[in-house]
């Protein structure tokens, strides 16, 4: 992947299932500064749709990218305000 953004922090939610990937992502993003990008590493296949939906419906965050690897899903969320 071409690095168009720098990862500020990585959150490991491997193993966790709904609703924890979204809930933990929210908590982690709260602790970051504006402009920061959080990498979320999950194994829950539902996290692809859930984090996308959460980012779309939540003020102050933006989904920058999502990657599906071998049973691991990586989500990149930027804090915009």
């Amino acid at each position, binding site marked *: 992947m071409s690095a168009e953004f720098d990862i500020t922090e990585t959150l490991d939610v491997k193993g966790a299932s709904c*609703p924890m990937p979204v809930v933990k992502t*929210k908590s982690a993003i709260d602790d970051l500064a504006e402009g920061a990008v959080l990498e979320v590493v999950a194994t829950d296949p539902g996290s692809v749709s859930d984090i996308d939906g959460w980012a779309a419906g939540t003020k102050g965050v933006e989904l920058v990218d999502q990657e599906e690897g071998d049973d691991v899903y990586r989500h990149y969320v930027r804090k915009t305000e």
Partner: protein
Amino acid sequence: MSTDTPGASADGAPSRAELAARVGELEDALAEATTEGDARKMSIVATKGTLDMAYPPLILASTAAAFGYDVTVFHTFWGLDILHEERSKNLKLSSVGNPNMPVPNAVAALPGMDRVTTKMMERRIEGNDTATIEELVETSLDMGVEFQACQMTIDLIGYDENNFYDGVTTGVGAATALQDMADADIQLLV
């Protein structure tokens, strides 16, 4: 008759200046209404205390909190067990009345069968790394979800208010729940 005369025109229609002032007022009111309701609200009424029925209100409450919603969950009747610190760790799954269970109802009604199906579900919850009820309650509280325990059913069932999780609101009734529902963007009964 000239149309740009200030003040009311001869036929009693409002003048351009009056209309402009009125539009300004309405724009201010609209701006206030749309920014004041910044935080969206969700109101859930939780009435069930079986293991399977305890999950939906907690999952939706914590997720809505992650979206930035102000969330209130009003617990009544067996829904109180979700807020009861000890009972919430031992919620049971009924093996009777659910035709999707792998055992026929006639067998499911035998003594001890609820314990068997509950153990089965608990093992699956553990194996799937699904959050426990306790974890979901604690997480929701951390995220600012307001859990309310219906006073009438606390007294009816005979629970001690000190046995609820710290942070649970007691001393509330239907009017409180109704007020929350009236203010909420999403209202659910579980």
